[in-house]
């Protein structure tokens, strides 16, 4: 039982994916029920995982076997850390599946959607369960694929196709570093499994620079997946995908994978102060900038996307300051309320017939009360309202930041201030006031399959932070690791303070406004980073490409190849000129030949 359980959790979605994509894609209902079944199997499985032994259980299957010198294993391992992620992934996954049954109801390619969803579940669970870097990389890539498929679900939309490509490529860049890191680890320690590496960590630490490089390379992977600066650009565009996807992949699970990975290999980063500092600052900066961008977005999903960015930044910063447990905790709580918010926004979009501009909404409080309540809870949880999940986790991170580096701490505070600000803005503009469009006026709550997940998530976002629940999920030592840092009263007070300031200012500014009173184009244009990248790519890659294309066409092929063949033909032509048909001329050449050869012979 123990050893089949992980396989069950992992393979159920894969099975459904295969069945759906290959065979069942004719009948929608069948495929829907298949993938629902799969996700519930995994959910139950992971719940059972809590039941069984607290210490890690692992099981492996050899994927590549070259004897002693080289083995690649598909190894599954369930320990405390895994359980948390399992719960998050399967739980939210299940809810999103249910939600999608309605949300995607009249989509023509419904079964493709669910198939890809199952595929995603499979690959995400793979990352979670992986017991070695190679396997994690494999599923890392697979997650990329499925997210590519899901973002590009409506592939006939040019923007969707573009976004899918963008997401994939940006991740690829991260993976480049990841793979390099893996190679470095392997070549120095000769091991790939997390525990083996941990055992032979000495080989790495004896060469600090190598260690730092390795750590940062691996971190690149996280940067890609968790959309940290400078590779954050794909996440906002990824909102082109259906909203459930955004909720599941781009808020709760996949983007968190980076953080999870960092937590997994924390033992490897810990010895290198430089690596940690870099990580911390990248996280912090991401958090801050993303928050700033969020304040000026008008697309409801984009606001959430940027907030996701900044929260992820916070988690990464947390890792950077050494509080990996705290980060995991925040990941855990954040998953719930961010999923909640996305699904809520999805409900709104659904109700308003795919209207996403918040300035075209308003007054939805009255028309869709259930959505409003849940959304409100989510908002509060996110912006750190005392007593809700977000408060606790964010507090934990800030606490350790406070002890580690004041800079990070300040940034964290500012970020949470901004968070409170833009979330309140969002809430006000969307729900309060009166409807600005016909659609907004006739909004309505969605059927139970959509509201039920909202409610469940809302409940979770409330309770998730409380020790009773969290401790159960995390298990003792980890949960105590969360609160490892010595407690000071200062931090919570500051946190609450910034929350209040942020909310209040937002209320003050946006109450009853029908258009945005503040216009900071720098923020609304996301610091022009995308434009900069576009220019950069055009300047470097495309330029180089066309240059080398030119070289290949006209130099290698044109000059060298054609040149040589031309030279041969030219020589042949010259030779033929010697055959000028004059008998005496031939005799002359003949004689010349004789004379030369004779000279060469007797000289």
């Amino acid at each position, binding site marked *: 039982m123990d050893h089949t359980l992980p396989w069950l959790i992992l393979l159920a979605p894969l099975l459904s994916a295969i069945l759906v994509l290959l065979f069942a894609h004719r009948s929608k209902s069948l495929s829907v029920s298949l993938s629902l079944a799969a996700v519930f199997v995994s959910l139950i499985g992971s719940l059972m995982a809590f039941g069984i032994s607290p210490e890690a259980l692992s099981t492996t299957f050899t994927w590549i076997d070259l004897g002693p010198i080289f083995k690649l294993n598909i190894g599954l391992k369930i320990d405390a850390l895994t359980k948390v992620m399992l719960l998050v992934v399967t739980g939210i996954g299940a809810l999103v599946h249910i939600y999608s049954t309605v949300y995607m109801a009249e989509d023509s390619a419904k079964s493709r959607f669910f198939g890809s969803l199952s595929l995603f579940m499979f690959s995400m669970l793979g990352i979670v369960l992986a017991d070695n870097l190679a396997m994690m990389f494999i599923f890392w890539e697979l997650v990329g694929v499925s997210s590519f498929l899901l973002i590009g679900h409506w592939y006939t939309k040019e923007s969707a196709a573009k976004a899918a490509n963008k997401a994939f490529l940006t991740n690829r860049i991260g993976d480049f570093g990841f793979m390099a890191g893996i190679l470095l680890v392997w070549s120095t320690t000769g091991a790939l499994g997390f525990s083996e590496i941990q055992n032979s960590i000495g080989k790495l630490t004896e060469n600090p620079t190598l260690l730092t490089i390795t750590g940062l390379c691996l971190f690149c992977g996280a940067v890609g997946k968790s959309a940290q600066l400078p590779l954050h650009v794909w996440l906002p565009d990824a909102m082109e995908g259906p909203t459930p996807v955004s909720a599941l992949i781009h808020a709760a699970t996949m983007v968190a994978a980076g953080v999870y990975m960092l937590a997994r290999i924390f033992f490897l980063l810990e010895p290198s102060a430089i690596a940690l500092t870099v990580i911390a600052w990248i996280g912090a900066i991401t958090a801050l900038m993303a928050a700033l961008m969020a304040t000026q977005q008008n697309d409801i999903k984009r606001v959430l996307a940027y907030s996701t960015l900044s929260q992820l930044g916070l988690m990464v910063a947390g890792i950077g300051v050494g509080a990996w447990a705290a980060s995991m905790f925040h990941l855990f709580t954040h998953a719930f309320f961010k999923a909640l918010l996305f699904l809520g926004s999805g409900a709104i979009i659904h109700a308003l017939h795919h209207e996403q501009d918040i300035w075209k909404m308003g007054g939805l409080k009255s028309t869709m009360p259930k959505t409003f309540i849940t959304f409100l809870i989510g908002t509060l949880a996110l912006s750190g309202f005392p007593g809700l999940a977000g408060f606790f986790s964010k507090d934990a991170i800030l606490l350790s930041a406070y002890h580690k580096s004041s800079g990070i701490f300040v940034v964290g505070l500012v970020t949470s201030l901004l968070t409170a600000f833009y979330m309140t803005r969002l809430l006000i503009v969307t729900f309060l006031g009166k409807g600005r469009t016909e659609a907004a006026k006739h909004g309505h709550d969605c059927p139970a399959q959509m509201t039920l997940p909202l409610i469940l998530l809302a409940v979770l976002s409330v309770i998730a932070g409380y020790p009773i629940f969290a401790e159960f999920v995390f298990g003792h030592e980890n949960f105590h690791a969360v609160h490892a840092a010595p407690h000071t009263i200062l931090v919570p007070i500051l946190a609450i303070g910034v929350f209040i300031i942020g909310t209040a200012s937002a209320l003050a500014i946006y109450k009853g406004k029908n258009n945005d009173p503040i216009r900071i184009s720098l923020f609304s244009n996301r610091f022009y980073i995308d434009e900069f990248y576009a220019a950069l790519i055009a300047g470097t890659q495309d330029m180089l490409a066309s240059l080398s294309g030119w070289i290949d066409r006209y130099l290698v092929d044109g000059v060298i190849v054609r040149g040589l063949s031309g030279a041969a033909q030219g020589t042949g032509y010259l030779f033929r000129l010697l055959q000028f048909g*004059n008998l005496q001329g031939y005799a002359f050449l003949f004689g010349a030949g004789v004379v030369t050869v004779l000279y060469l012979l007797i000289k």
Partner: protein
Amino acid sequence: MNQLTLNNYLLASGLLFTLGFAGVLLRRNIIIIFMCLELMLNAANLSLVAFSRFHVGADGLPNYNAQVLVFFIITVAAAEVAVGLAIIVALYRARQTTHVEDIQSLKF
């Protein structure tokens, strides 16, 4: 006349050979070119005879193999001349010329 050494004869024949060759290269009239070729053959004959006189066998006689070869060469040359002249005549009939510049239609 035995104070003449072999080299004197060889020199003479060599010069004759060169002369013939020069003629082949210089003259434009095919018939004369042909004559010059005969000159070259005879040059060869001269040195052959000289050599045959030079390689006196055990019996104290000149080496007659060479003279036989000379005989063959003369015969062959005669035959060659006959055929050659026939071709030249045919050429003249066809083109009214025996000049090398006039037969350059095949080239390159």
